[in-house]
Each structure stands twice: as C-alpha cells, then as structure tokens.
C-alpha cells in the first residue's frame, strides 16, 4: 500500500508540471501578456507611466525573456530544490547558489503581496463553506436515497428521482440571482444579507447571542456569520446531493436483495430494523469511498457562489487573479486546486481499497 501511495504521489509531479505548463503557456501566448494591473474603473491612464512600470516588471520578473525561460524560472521558484535567489542593490534578482530552499509561490502583481499569504487568507473561507455544505449534502443524500430505495417504484421514488434531477439542473447563477433578488433585496424581502461573510458591525459583537444592558437582543458574531452563510450554502447544497442520493439508492437496493438481508427478513426481523440495522450500514460503504471525490466538484461550485455572493474565498481570488492577469497568483491557483483534486482522487482510491478487501493496489 505504501509503495502504491508513494508511486501515486510521484506520478502527481508530471501531472502538476503539465497543469501549470498548460495554464502558463495559455497565459503567456495570449495577447497582452502580464500587466494590466493598473486598471481603474473609468480607464484612466498615463501611457508613459505604464511603460515605466512594464519596464520594471520586465527587469524584475524577466517577463521579456523567452517563454520557456520564464516558465523554468517559475518552476525554480516554487521548487524546494533549486537555485536560491536574492535581490541585488538594483532590486534585480540574482541567483546565489544551488541547494534546498524554501519554496516560494511568488508575489501577486496586482496586490503586491506574497501569493502564499493571499491563498492563506482565502482558503479557510472556502473550506468553511464546504465544511458546512458537505455534511448537509450527505444527510439529505443518504436519507433521500434510503427512502427512495425503500419505496422503490412508488411515488416517492419517482418524485425524488425527478426532483433531484431538476434541482441538479438549476444553474447556480440563476439560483443565486433569484435568492439575492427576492430574499435579500430592498425591493422584495430583506430576510438575508446580499453578500459577504459578516455584517459591517460584526467586529464589535459578542461571540454568542446575548442581551445588551438595555435589554435589546444582540445576535452575536456566530449567529451573524451563520445568517450570512445561509444563502451561499443553499446554493452549494441544492445541486450537489442528486448524484450521491442516486448512488445511495442503488447501493441500498443492492444490499436489500443480498442473502443476509433476506435471511434476516425470513427470521422475522421487522422491516425497519432490517433496513436501518442490517442493510443501511453496508449500503453506506460505497458512498464513503466517493466522499473525497466530491470535493473537487464543490471547489468548482464555490467559485461561482463566491463570485455571486462576494465572498472572499479561493474561487473569488482566482477569478480576480485571472481577470487581472496576475501571473503568479493564477499559476498558484492552478497548482493548489490541482493538488487538492489529485489528493482527493488518491484518497478516494485508498478508501475504496480499505473498504473493499477485494481491491488491492500492491
């Protein structure tokens, strides 16, 4: 098993090289290259200043050098083993020696900050969104799957089947616009905030709900955060459980027809106990194996949701980076989401092996 894991991890390296190469060359070959960070809303500019700025970036980041050189330079920068770099007194990078070094994801042109910091701030937000979404998706998917299997062919089964497919077909952009428009807008209901993760005043709130000295109720930071998360989480949840639910249904159907379940039934165990006590646990197994597999999909989904609800997570950061042509930020985004996806796939495969003794990777 260990050798298998190591082999898979090693195979990830060429894949990651490929991913970053694809993104890098698409970006580099597109007209405009890397710049365009000085954009203001009305398009004000001073061409001479732009030229000076571009000259600086060319000198500092080698943007005027051949593409393959630039890519090599970037690889060296993120690699833990390579040439160390230091700035000389002209502010230009010089290579000082070969050896192990701290991998560096580079600097964001548009925000003038280390890429690592930016993702460090954005990743927890996206993880929080997903951490809330995944359990909800699971509970709904498992319950609906089990009941659909139990009432197989009945109206409940047909209704959930079609209903889930319908939910799955609703474009997130539409759901987001409708939720904001009708539930969070001045013109209609003002039940929820339109975006963000906290109210303006949340910084000064107590953590838990409480009563102020004059007896007014304050919702507190925690409730405020949850209140802001309702709409985005709804958007992430509604389309995600269709697949899982279908899988659960199939799995339950399979176990119900298994010998041991029939034996239990024959022994006179009541239907409910058979379902929940015997069939359920075994039916859950294949679902666990795909648990890790749904995370990459959710990452993609949160990109749209974060954009619509202006939440500063990974998705929005990546989107901003792409629009600002922020080379290092875009490449780091590709790298990070690539690693997450590959690791999730690996975990899914490992879960499969652990859950099913017949599968062996050695």
């Amino acid at each position, binding site marked *: 098993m260990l050798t298998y894991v190591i082999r898979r991890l090693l195979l990830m390296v060429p894949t990651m090289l490929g991913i970053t190469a694809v993104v890098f060359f698409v970006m580099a070959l597109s007209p405009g290259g890397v710049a365009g960070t000085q954009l203001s809303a009305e398009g*004000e500019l001073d061409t001479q200043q732009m030229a000076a700025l571009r000259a600086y970036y060319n000198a500092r980041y080698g943007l005027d050098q051949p593409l393959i050189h630039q890519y090599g330079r970037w690889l060296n920068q993120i690699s833990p083993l390579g040439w160390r770099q230091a700035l000389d007194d002209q502010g230009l990078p010089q290579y000082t020696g070969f050896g192990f070094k701290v991998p560096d994801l580079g600097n964001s042109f548009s925000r003038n900050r280390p890429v690592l910091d930016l993702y460090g701030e954005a990743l927890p937000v996206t993880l929080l969104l997903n951490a809330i979404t995944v359990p909800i998706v699971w509970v709904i998917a498992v319950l609906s799957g089990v009941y659909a299997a139990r009432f197989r062919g009945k109206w409940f089964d047909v209704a959930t089947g079609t209903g889930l497919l319908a939910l799955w077909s609703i474009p997130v952009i539409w759901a987001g616009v409708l939720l904001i428009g009708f539930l969070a807008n*001045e013109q209609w209901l003002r039940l929820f905030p339109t975006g963000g993760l906290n109210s303006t005043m949340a910084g000064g709130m107590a953590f838990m709900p409480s009563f102020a000295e004059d007896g007014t109720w304050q919702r507190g930071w925690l409730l405020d955060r949850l209140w802001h998360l309702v709409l985005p989480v709804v958007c992430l949840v509604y389309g995600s459980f269709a697949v899982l639910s279908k899988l659960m249904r199939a799995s339950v159907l399979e176990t119900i027809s298994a010998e041991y379940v029939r034996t239990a039934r024959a022994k006179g165990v009541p239907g409910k106990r058979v379902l929940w006590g015997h069939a359920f646990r075994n039916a859950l197994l294949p679902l666990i194996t795909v648990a890790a597999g749904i995370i990459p999909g959710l990452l993609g989904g949160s990109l749209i949701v974060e954009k619509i609800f202006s939440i500063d997570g990974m998705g929005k950061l990546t989107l901003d980076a792409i629009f600002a042509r922020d080379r290092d930020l875009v490449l780091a985004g590709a790298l990070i989401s690539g690693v997450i996806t590959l690791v999730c796939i690996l975990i899914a495969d490992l879960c499969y092996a652990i859950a099913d003794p017949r599968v062996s990777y050695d």
Partner: protein
Amino acid sequence: MPNRFGFKDLLTVVLLAAVLVSVWLAMKQFDRQWDRLAALETQTQQLVAEQSATRRDVSELLEKLETGGVQFGGNAVSTDAGFDYDPHARMEVARGAEDFAEGDWVIDAFGTNIGTVNPLVNTDLYAFRIQTYVLEPMVGVDPETLERVPVLARSWEIEENLEAWQAHVDAEMARPLTDEEIRAEPAFPADGTADEQGAYVAERHAEGRREVDIVADPDAPPATWITFRLRRGPVFSDGVPVTAEDVKFTFDLLMDPQIDAPSTRQFYVNLKSCEVIDERTVRFAIKRPHYEALGHAGGRPVLPKHFYEQFTPREFNEGVGLLLGSGPYRMPDPENWRPGQPMELVRNERYWGAKPAFKKVVFREISNDVARLTAFRNGEIDIFAAQPEQYEQLLGDEEVVARSQHFAYLRVPQGYSFIAWNQRRDGRETRFADRRVRQAMTFLTPRQQIADDLYLGYAEVANGPFAKSSQQFNPELETRSFDVERAVALLKEAGWEDRDGDGVLENRAGDEFRIKLTYPSGNELADRIVLYLKDAYARAGVVLEPDPLEFAILVERLNDQTFDAITLAWGGGTVERDLRQTFHSAQAIKGGDNVMSYINPELDVIIDEARMTLDDEKRMELWRQAHAIVHEDQPYTFLFNRKTLWFVDGRLRNVTPVSVGLNDRTEWYAPLATQRWTD
C-alpha cells in the same frame, strides 16, 4: 446496567463546578483589571495631550523668535511674510462652532479589501485614502484656493537654473537631426516614402526623443533647486520630531530600486537629488522645468527615518501594515496590521496641530454594492459614494433623505471621457485624418441622451478639454448636439456616401465605413454606452463594431497605435490643464499620449507659447485660442464630465463642498447629543 449516581460522577460534578467557579472568578478579576487599564489609558491620553500642547506652544515661540515674529519692546521684524499660512485654520474654525464636540467615530466603507497600508508598496486608491490621515507632506494644497500651501514645511525657496539648463539642452539639440534618426521613427512609413505630414511627424518625434535623452543624462545641470525649511513643531505620532533627515530618507527609500514601488516611483522621475543642508533645511534638485516641480518635491508624505530604517528592503516590501507618520490620526499598532483585520485609525493625541473631533476613523470593507447601500441605510456607515442609480434610489427614500445630507458636484481638477479618432495607422492616414469626418462623428454622438439615460443626468456633456468653470474654457464655442443630417452632409462632403445601396457608406475607392471602437472591458456602463453609439452611428450608415479589450491589451494597442477609435477618460490632473501632453505633435510618438497622431502645427505653436507665458491673463487667452482650434479639429469627441455623488450621515456637521470636493473629514464633527459610537 445500573444507572446509579456513583462516586466517580460526584467527583466529576464537583470538579466541573470548581472549574466553572474559578473561571467566573478569573473573569471578574479580568474585568476589574480592564477597568483599571481603561482609567490609566485615559489618564495617559490626557497627559500626552497636555504635553503636546506645551510642546506646541514652545515650538511656536521658538519659531517666532527665529523668524523675528516676536515683538521685543516694539521692534517688530517679520521676514517670512508670505508663509504665515496656518494649515489648521479651517480646523480651528470648526472647533469654534457652538455645537462642536469631540468624540464619536466616522465610518467609511471601501468597495474592496484593504490589502496594504504600506506608504510606498501600494497600488490602490484605498490605501492612499487611509494614509492621508496618518501621513503629512511638506507642501499641501489649499482645498478652497487650490494653491500650494506649507504643511510640514514652514517655507520654501525656488532657485531657477534655467539659463544653464537651457544652454545645455540647446547645445545638444543644435546638432541637426540625421536622416536615420527620422527614418527610425515608427511614424515613418516602412517603405521609405513619407508624405509631407508624415515627414513632419517623424521629425517632431525624433526631436522629442532626443530631448528626453538629454534631460535624463545624470551630468546635465538641474533646471531648478527647491529648498524647504521645516517647521519646528511637528512630531511623528511616537513623539520623535520631524527633521530634514526624514525628508531625505523618504526620497532615498522611494528611489531605492530594491523597494517594490515602481508605480509610485515613476511620478518622481523628475527629481534629481535631495540633500540635507541642516537639521531643518533640505534641498531638492529638479531635472527639467516643470510647473508641478514644487508639488513633486514637497508633496510626498514624509516618513519617519527612525521607524522605517529598522526594516530590510524585503521586510519593508512585505510589511503591509507598516504605517507611521505625523498626521492627525495614527494606526493603533504601526507594525503588525494584517489584511482582514479591522481597519481603525485612532486620534493622534501627540498631534502638533489642532486636533480633529473624531476619536476614531473606521474603514469597513464591503465589496458588495447592495450591502454597502444597506449598511448606509442602517446607519452602519457614515459616508456612501453612490452610483447614479443608487443616488436616485436613495433620493427617493424620504426616511434616508431626512437623516442624511447629499452632494452632487463636479470636482476640480476635472476629468473627462472622450473618443479618440486615430488619424494615422501603420504610417498612413486613416479616414479620420479628414477634419470633416471627425466633426461628423461628434454630430453623430448622442451625448445629451446618454448623459440623461445612463448617467441619469449626473454627468455634463464636455465641450473640450477644460472645465467649464475655468478661465481656460472658451465660452464662445458651441457644443455640437446630436444632428444626423449635418453629419451626413459633412460625410458626403468628405466623399463618404452609400454607393451600393447596402446602407453602409463607402468612399470613392469603395471602402466601407466600418470602425472598431476599442474600450476597456469589464465595465457594464461602457458596454451600454457603446451600444448607444452603435445605434446612433447606424443612422448615418456607419458600422461600429464594439471591441472590448482587457486593459493590458488595450495599452498595447495604444502604444502601437493600431486602433480605429478608442474611448477612455482622463483623470483630474492639475487645476490648469496643459494641452501639450495630449494634443501637441511632439507627443504623437510611440508611447506618447497623443495616441491618435493629431498634428496641427498652428496648435503646437500656441501650446508652446502658452507654456512659456507667465502672465496669467495672456496665457489664458492663448489657452482659449487653443480650445477653439481643438474644438474645430475635434481630435477627440469629448464625452462627459461626471459628477461625484455622496451621501453623508446627517449627524455629521460642517460637511461642506469646497473646490476639491468635500472638505477634509478632520473638519467634521458630531454634536454631543447625536454622537453614536464610543469605545
């Protein structure tokens, strides 16, 4: 399984209770310490305030002694008569108001996250807005008269070295332009044959290029020296006095290539050197004569040397929270602020001038438009910069209007948007080289309708590069209104008519009148304006293809001058607008701002003359002449001057429009009865 309450359970309960009691006691203790701490803090603040008042008195006295402003037995001698400007006079007036009260906070909202407040390593306007509270320059701008006024500097002296400089430049320029130099210009056609105008353009370009090289030469004599004398009173918010060393340090840091400040640095390319004369005197050398030289040398906020020199360039570049200065507010922690933490400035109790009213200036980050509007409605933020749609929406809400004040004004210096018609492309004249065509395009642009429909009336149709309120503006020139018939007539005169009956105009050679209008993408309003133009131009048989481009690519097109027409906007710039940058033929070089290669020798002469004319009245007359030429030639179709729209909470007093917009927030206050926020 017996469900009895056993000894173990008892032990657990007792332990739990003990823990709870001790936690409660600890909290009590903590609260008492907190109270004590708060009391101590108030006391310290009072002490600091008293001390700074004393310091101010002493330094004022010293300063008067030095300048001879103090009267000893009737021997009054005043040397610096022109520099008795008090930068805090307006604040003192506000403090004198009947209902003036200290306290409360003012809360502003930003549309994006604040990524950095570092004074050099920043690229956004938001950081700049925060810094204006914390940092101070030597020379500021009076908000009403727009004149340069002393802030940290007490006085300055400008020494012109024009003769030596001009002699140097003339000597270098006297060498005649070689044929190669002219032919090397991109404006010169690649096949080696140029028409008369093409040759003229290439020559102007070569001239401009050489002049740039001469001035950039480090051995060239400076054109101007500016010597600043600093005030004695100002201290940074940690109590260290502001000295000439700090000014030089600021300059050196800015020019240090290891500091990631290219976008800030490029504004100061005209500064040659900075030297310390004595503790409170500093002298700048300026590369070329420039009417903004004083602003460049003195307008940069002064940074404390003792604070910033602790950091290596790398630490400085990455120090997003490094902000310390001598301004009326300060960061609670000048080193360790990180993005994502709340951005609150506290009042600088050591401030050397009159103190502002608000104890805190708070900046909230609300990136969602609607959420920001809601926050203003709820009274969670005090200032709201509105879009026309939002402004209308708020005006329609009686409750909001009743408890707030609103402002719509044209700021000075005024910016304008425009469409530039490219007259030369790949060394050849385009259809826009014909003045009649450009005039026709202006007649075809439904400017008033766009201003009414899309800006909801909060924009004025621009009729030239100058603000209507300025002396430069020529009031005799009539704004061309939307008139398809006149446009069609002009186009026909220029040889454009529909010759094959497909609805599109053709010239004699049979080329169709199709143009690509390039504009920055990602702006919904721009998209809508371009659709207006498309429909309007269609009425005269002109096909417009929208060409939204990302800014990076757009700049490339500007540099290569490979576009048909482009729509952009110029920002405010300076109060008196210099036309050289945009309309002088010398600027029609690659990378210059005359991107549409507009050449009018007559205008060149007037612009050059105006720049050298020191007499205000005569210069203004020349600008008005230049305006008339530009108006006739229409190198741009001038579009709009946009109004700035503000909503401000009603409890804030002394919010008044001044020439530059709204007055500084340090002059605002909230009367005691309506104050909203305390610690």
